[in-house]
């Protein structure tokens, strides 16, 4: 519509939409996690794994800003977008209580997304921890669709924090670590024995920062291509307010616009 003043730079970004989506399902996956599914009367826009949406929270002064949530999955047959949400405060609590049929105002798709391999690979490794596993389902599906064979290592505190294992297993081998040994191997994702058996050629990671730093260290020590998805606190979601910056080799970059996915070589982490 306003293409006449679209900048050259903006052409690298996909068109963003502001949509009133309709809740088709909102189910607890675990005690503090819900899977929110939304649909639209029109076909949902093009979206890439690793991108996110800003969900509008109505009804409370303490939940003033939108909540940035990564895209968990896009079901094109049902025209549904999924958000896997960890209930950690009033905003996410409000989202978990949205009834089926209600409307939710959403900005999407935001951010850059993961870079998929140009030629199919047997050995992409997707490492997630906690709610950080959410975007890896969409990534795994897209990788698999393009002829890759993804492997997942999913980490959680305990079995009560593990989500969507059956969905993940549809797209690749799934390995699990838990800190309390209630499921899979005991320990952290970077301690899983599969890492000693297979030589992976690219790593994608999302989860708590200490976990991603450990993953980045592993990838760097083996000289493996590695991208991580950050979740810095943000407001606008479109690169205007400059609140969510990460310090990088190119200075302060917006996680919402230049990220959330960064190559580890771009970051200033001590790895």
């Amino acid at each position, binding site marked *: *519509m*306003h293409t*006449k*003043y*679209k*900048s*050259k*730079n*903006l052409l690298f970004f996909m*068109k*963003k*939409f*502001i949509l009133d989506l309709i809740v088709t399902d909102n189910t607890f996956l675990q005690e503090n996690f819900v899977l929110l599914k939304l649909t639209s009367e029109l076909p949902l826009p093009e979206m890439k794994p690793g991108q996110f949406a800003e969900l*509008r929270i109505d009804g409370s*002064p*303490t*939940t*003033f*800003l*939108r909540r940035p949530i990564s895209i968990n999955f896009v079901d094109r047959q049902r025209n549904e977008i999924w958000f896997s949400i960890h209930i950690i405060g009033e905003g996410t609590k409000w989202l978990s209580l949205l009834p089926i049929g209600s409307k939710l*105002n959403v*900005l999407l798709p935001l951010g850059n997304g993961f870079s998929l391999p140009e030629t199919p690979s047997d050995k992409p490794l997707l490492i997630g921890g906690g709610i950080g596993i959410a975007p890896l389902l969409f990534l795994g599906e897209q990788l698999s669709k393009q002829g890759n064979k993804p492997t997942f290592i999913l980490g959680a505190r305990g079995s009560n924090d593990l989500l969507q294992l059956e969905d993940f297993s549809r797209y690749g081998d799934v390995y699990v670590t838990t800190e309390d040994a209630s499921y899979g191997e005991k320990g952290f994702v970077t301690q899983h024995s599969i890492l000693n058996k297979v030589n992976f050629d690219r790593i994608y990671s999302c989860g708590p920062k200490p976990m991603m730093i450990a993953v980045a260290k592993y990838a760097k020590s083996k000289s493996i291509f590695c991208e991580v998805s950050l979740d*810095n*606190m*943000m*407001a*606008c*979601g*479109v*690169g*205007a*307010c*400059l*609140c*969510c*910056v*990460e*310090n990088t080799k190119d*200075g*302060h970059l917006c996680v919402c*616009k230049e990220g959330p996915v960064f190559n580890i070589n771009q970051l200033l982490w001590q790895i």
Partner: protein
Amino acid sequence: MADLNVNIGELKFKNPVMTASGTFGYGEEFSDFVDLERIGGIIVKGTTIHKREGNPYPRMAETPSGMLNAVGLQNKGVDYFVKEIYPRIKNINTNIIVNVSGSSIEDYVQTAEIINELVNIPAIELNISCPNVKQGGMTFGVSPVASAKVVKAVRSVYKKTLIVKLTPNVTDVAEIARAVEANGADSVSLINTLLGMAIDVEKQCPVLSTITGGLSGPAVKPIALRMVWQVANAVKIPVIGLGGIMNWKDAVEFLLAGATAIQIGTANFIDPSVTTKVIDGINDYLDRRNYKSVKDIIGALSV
């Protein structure tokens, strides 16, 4: 359809709704959501003579009905603006206004001189009110003498419409407004953010890397409205009102209080298409009440 035109100095605006600096990027960030050419004016991100990295993360905290920010004027400097950004935005058919900030009077003057040469930038907003920088910014805006000095110096080199953005972090904002008016400002805009703070009780640390930051959003609206009313009664130059405007009703309150135009800031983060909704809402209000022009309600508050 009422006449929504307003004038700030000699500059004509197609309607009284602008976007506040630092909340709308360079406009481009919002072009997927809103027809930029419907907006009365776009005030782009604070620009300084040299590149600034801004403050360390974290720079933002959500607060009741608002947010704190401590961005610290991150921008790539005026030369980058002129070379890279201006060519991309100069043909957007609205008033593109550059918010100019600095650490010293010389910084403000040099930046204003450079912007003065840009044909399609009809005005600057002089930011003497940023609370998030150690030098300059608000340190000018809290003193009538320092405000007067910087405005006088910029006025001597800047030939187009000069708007000066005021801070609410003062005892008597009208005194500052009068000092700015006396030294050649064509308009004042207010309020910039209120100095505030948030604490993480579990970590027992400030949420912001800079400890304090600027509060914006509906939480500040009553204070902003009061200050706009005070300043509109104290100066003859047009006042641009901002602070917590979320919808057309908020905007009309500012117009009634004496603002000739308004700016929308933090609301852009909640609804990126809010600007055009506010324009439509003001128009509907005027039509419903049989006003021919938005000018008829400016300062129309009966007390």
